[in-house]
């Protein structure tokens, strides 16, 4: 559905993305993951025809983004990073206008605007002026705008940014539902979001693709449970040494004073040491106060991905 070939974009002499290639099958939900300024927005803007690439090209539904931009634009729904809202219009008028720009007939428009309003839970606000809406509602109107014409491909730039946790959950469910009959590419810098929503992840850093895989494979390759944070009552020195001796522990960082310490234990890949550590603490007669796995943060992923060439 989407084939990206050697896409490169320079802003003057500044390289935004370089040699990006990937392909997305029909019906897939793919996450574009990366820190700020990694090139996510640039990639999406090129796919939507808002920006031209410096070199390379992409095809969406078989149409070339450079030579058949109008055909491509007919088939995409796009939520830009800054939600493009006309603040003087009501939600209904805005969605109707968006649908009209996408060439929907009047009858079809009425039907689709209603459907989009329902999907995004905006029923009670259809006549409210957009300027009076909160950030979360604006984001939802932005999503409604992207899907109002039932495009084959949805391109969503940070769809869950700036909205509250309940709405984030709703939005993710919405995206998953939409994934049944749309091909979706979304960008985010929140790692858990990707594993919840996406079937595949493309990680971009400094304009280059550093990894493409399923979220499960990725976290497996990056070391499963990763790190444990343990609070133990017991002599700091001895506890640290004992933890270090455990097979599969690669690093222990200790902080605390007297007999109460907090230990950050980094484990080797795909080893779950929680039970062993609990047993050890009990055996020594220390007190296990707290233990939790620390999920991999995006920083960890990048550290790992940039340090370990063998990935």
């Amino acid at each position, binding site marked *: 559905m989407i084939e990206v070939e050697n896409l490169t974009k320079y802003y003057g002499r500044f390289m935004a993305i370089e040699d990006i290639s990937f392909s997305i099958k029909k019906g897939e939900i793919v996450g574009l993951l990366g820190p700020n300024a990694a090139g996510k927005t640039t990639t999406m*803007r090129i796919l939507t025809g*808002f*920006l*031209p690439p410096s070199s390379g090209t992409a095809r969406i539904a078989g149409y070339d983004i450079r030579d058949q931009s109008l*055909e491509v*634009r007919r088939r995409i729904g*796009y939520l830009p990073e*800054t*939600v493009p*809202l006309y603040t003087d219009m009501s939600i209904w008028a805005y969605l109707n206008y968006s649908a009209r720009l996408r060439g929907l007939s009047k009858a079809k428009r009425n039907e689709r605007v209603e459907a989009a309003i329902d999907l995004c839970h905006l029923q009670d606000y259809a006549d409210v002026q957009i300027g009076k809406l909160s950030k979360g509602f604006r984001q939802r109107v932005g999503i409604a705008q992207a899907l109002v014409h039932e495009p084959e491909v949805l391109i969503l730039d940070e769809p869950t940014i700036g909205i509250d946790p309940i709405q984030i959950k709703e939005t993710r469910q919405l995206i998953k539902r939409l994934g049944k009959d749309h091909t979706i590419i979304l960008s985010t810098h929140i790692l858990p979001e990707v594993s919840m929503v996406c079937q595949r992840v493309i990680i971009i850093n400094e304009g280059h693709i550093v990894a493409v895989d399923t979220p499960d494979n990725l976290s497996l390759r990056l070391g499963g449970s990763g790190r444990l944070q343990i609070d133990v009552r017991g002599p700091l020195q001895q506890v640290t040494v004992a933890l270090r001796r455990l097979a599969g522990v690669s690093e222990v960082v200790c902080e605390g004073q007297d007999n109460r310490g907090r230990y950050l234990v980094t484990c080797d890949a795909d080893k779950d040491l929680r039970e062993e550590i609990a047993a050890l603490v009990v055996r020594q007669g220390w007190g296990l106060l707290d233990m939790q796995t620390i999920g991999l943060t995006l920083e960890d992923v990048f550290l790992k991905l940039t340090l370990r060439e063998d990935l």
Partner: protein
Amino acid sequence: MRNTVAIAGKELRSYFASPIAYVVITVFLVVTGLFFYYGLHDFPYEATVRHYLAPFYFQLLVVMLASVLTMRLIAEEQKTGTIELLLTAPVRDLEVVMGKFLSALAILVVMLAITLYYPLLMYWFGSPDSGPIFSAYLGALLMGAAFVALGVFSSTLSANQIVAAVVSIGVLSLLLLFDWIGEEVGGDAGGVLGYLAFPNHYEDFYRGIIDTEHLIYFLSFIAVSLFLATRSLETRRWR
């Protein structure tokens, strides 16, 4: 074409959703109304629309109002990011430009149409010559349309509405002054400047003459401005 109508309709609604259209139309009516009153007061036996459509100040007023009307059309979309919706929709750049142009042109038409009650008053109390009234209005419409087209172009140049308005007012003022500058310079260069100056092309209209030379001047002024606006919008993508 369908897209042009959609964009023009949306812009027209937003003109009236904000105070812009009302303020511009009010100012226009107050000023032309004063011209009309004093014109009739000073020359009570001349039933002519020249009182208010001919003065230098009228032309300057249209320069100002056309620039203010058009300044937000594309600049605002660039500022708020809605341009991303417009340029990623399956709409040609020319359709965007035409839609914006037609919406501002519609306001201009409304403005001029309301002043038609001045000639109606003259018909009521006297017997004015219809020909020159028609040609004067045609001239005012063409001149205004040309200014609006240039205003749309300058609105594509910046995300800042003030910059857009100042560029438009600046260029149009120069074209207004080329009339005098041309005479000062003289020779071929002066002739070229004089040709570019729109007052030289406008004056025949309010005198009752419709000359194809002047029609062509204003129509090509409009075409060139809209062409430049379209190209400017296209290159926006490449910047």
